[in-house]
């Protein structure tokens, strides 16, 4: 059994992949708590897709693909915030317009490059076993920035998310904090692309926090449990991917989904079964 777990780690690419998967698991799950509580799932998905033109331009200019992705994610995220604040366009409409435009631009650019096919599939579906040591260091650096910000700014971010009226009376810079959260989300998504790819980033942002929400009643424990679930899904998913030759991103997301279904059914207090039992107790008096 131990051998079963350790033998994959004798490969350097597996070690790097495991480290990246764990970091992504933690990061997505923690930042995802805000995504879930503030109903930003569509936004997260949109930003992930909007990265494509950034990657394409970086590729055409022979630049760093991750930096290109990061810039595109931040630009689109802030652009959506800007459009929404003008008051003429609803947020989900603004998201729909900007993310499809960015995606179309990405497709248009990529269609001009013939040799791009391989790298493109990595962007779409992730390629955790192709994580280079440079990628890993970048992931570590961005993770420290994002987690540090979430911990240091826990109080102001909690207030702007829970009660914007209190935030305004306490004179918190609401716009600035919202933009900061947007940038943290963009960092997280770009890091997560390596493991799960564009198509499945939203799952990593939403599923572990949604599972943790069913199991906890306070914000900090929710973030902690969410991170644990993210780590567990990433590690188990990666082993499944190694032994059964499944795409790593898909294996990670399916593991997380399985945990969510368990919590949805069996969570004490909030799970379906516990609520049914409670109802029948009430009915019987």
């Amino acid at each position, binding site marked *: 059994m131990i051998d079963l777990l350790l033998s994959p780690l004798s490969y350097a690419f597996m070690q790097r992949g495991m480290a990246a998967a764990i970091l992504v698991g933690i990061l997505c799950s923690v930042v995802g708590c805000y995504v879930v509580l503030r109903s930003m799932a569509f936004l997260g998905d949109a930003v992930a897709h909007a990265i494509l033109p950034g990657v394409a331009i970086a590729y055409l200019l022979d630049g760093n693909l991750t930096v290109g992705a990061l810039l595109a994610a931040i630009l689109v995220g802030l652009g959506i915030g800007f459009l929404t604040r003008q*008051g003429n366009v609803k947020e989900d409409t603004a998201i729909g317009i900007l993310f499809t435009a960015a995606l179309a631009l990405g497709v248009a650019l990529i269609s001009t490059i013939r040799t791009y096919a391989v790298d493109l599939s990595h962007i779409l579906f992730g390629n955790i076993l192709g994580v280079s040591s440079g990628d890993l260091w970048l992931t570590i650096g961005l993770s420290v920035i994002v987690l540090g910000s979430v911990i240091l700014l826990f109080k102001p971010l909690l207030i702007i998310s*829970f009660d914007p*009226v209190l935030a305004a009376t306490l004179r918190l810079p*609401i716009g600035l904090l919202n933009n900061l959260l947007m940038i943290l989300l963009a960092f997280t998504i770009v890091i997560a692309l390596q493991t799960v790819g564009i198509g499945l980033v939203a799952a990593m942002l939403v599923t572990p926090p949604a599972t943790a*929400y069913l199991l906890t009643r*306070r*914000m900090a424990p929710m973030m902690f449990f969410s991170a644990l679930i993210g780590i567990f899904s990433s590690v188990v998913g990666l082993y499944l991917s190694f032994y059964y030759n499944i795409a790593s991103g898909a294996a990670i997301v399916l593991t997380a989904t399985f945990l969510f279904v368990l919590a949805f059914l069996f969570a004490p207090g909030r799970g379906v079964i516990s609520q049914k039992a409670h109802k029948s107790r009430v009915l019987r008096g």
Partner: protein
Amino acid sequence: MDELNKMFENLARLEIDHVYAGYGNNLILEDLTFQVPHGGQVAVVGPNGAGKSTLFKVLVGLLPVKKGNIFIHGLPLGAHQDCVAYVPQRGDVDWKFPVTVRDVVMMGRYGRLGWLTRPGEKDHQIVAECIHQLGVSKLANQPIGELSGGQQQRVFLARALAQQPHILLMDEPFTGVDISTQEVALNLLEELHKQGVTVLVSTHDLNMAAERFELVLLLNRKIIAFGPPTEVLTPERIKIAFGGKVLFIHGAAVVDECCPPEEQDNFGARS
């Protein structure tokens, strides 16, 4: 007389000077000028749409003034970050958020704590006292979503108390809540009076305004009258403020509107 005015000004904690406010092109408050002395308790009375909630939103900085000035302790609005607390008519929050009663009340301390400091012994003690004072100690560890409407209102009052404000604004705290929550809110007013906290409470209950408050601001977009209830709440003035919506039965005024509709809220903080 000038001397006296000057003294009054020095004592004033809250000074509103020719203030105009509204949403977009729609002017709701016109030329309000009044001063509330140190520790004064004011009932803000007026019909629906008179601008009671708008006045509070302006005072707390949720809505900018179009013209005029507001001074708190002689300094313009916004110079003090934590001395005005506001309890909205119905907290416009996500009730499914994973926070307990204690967490919500602790948020009242955040203004004083700053962004990076963790709550200390003293903060926990103040939070526990405020929770106790509003009679929700047993619920301290409950998620706020599991509370009744009256209990939720008490939690928001406890949070305002934990802010240790110099000025407390309460929007219709006696509307749509159970009798015991009303009683708790009234006791709270007395306690705040002892502490010298300046309080503005909006209400449509003329009798409560007359019995429980030393000052009444009769408002209908403009100030109809401001002063002690016996001077302000005269049948003539009430008629001016409320128009045809008021009945006099044996000298007691009854207003023909009980539950004010949710005021249209053009303010989008969550963008």
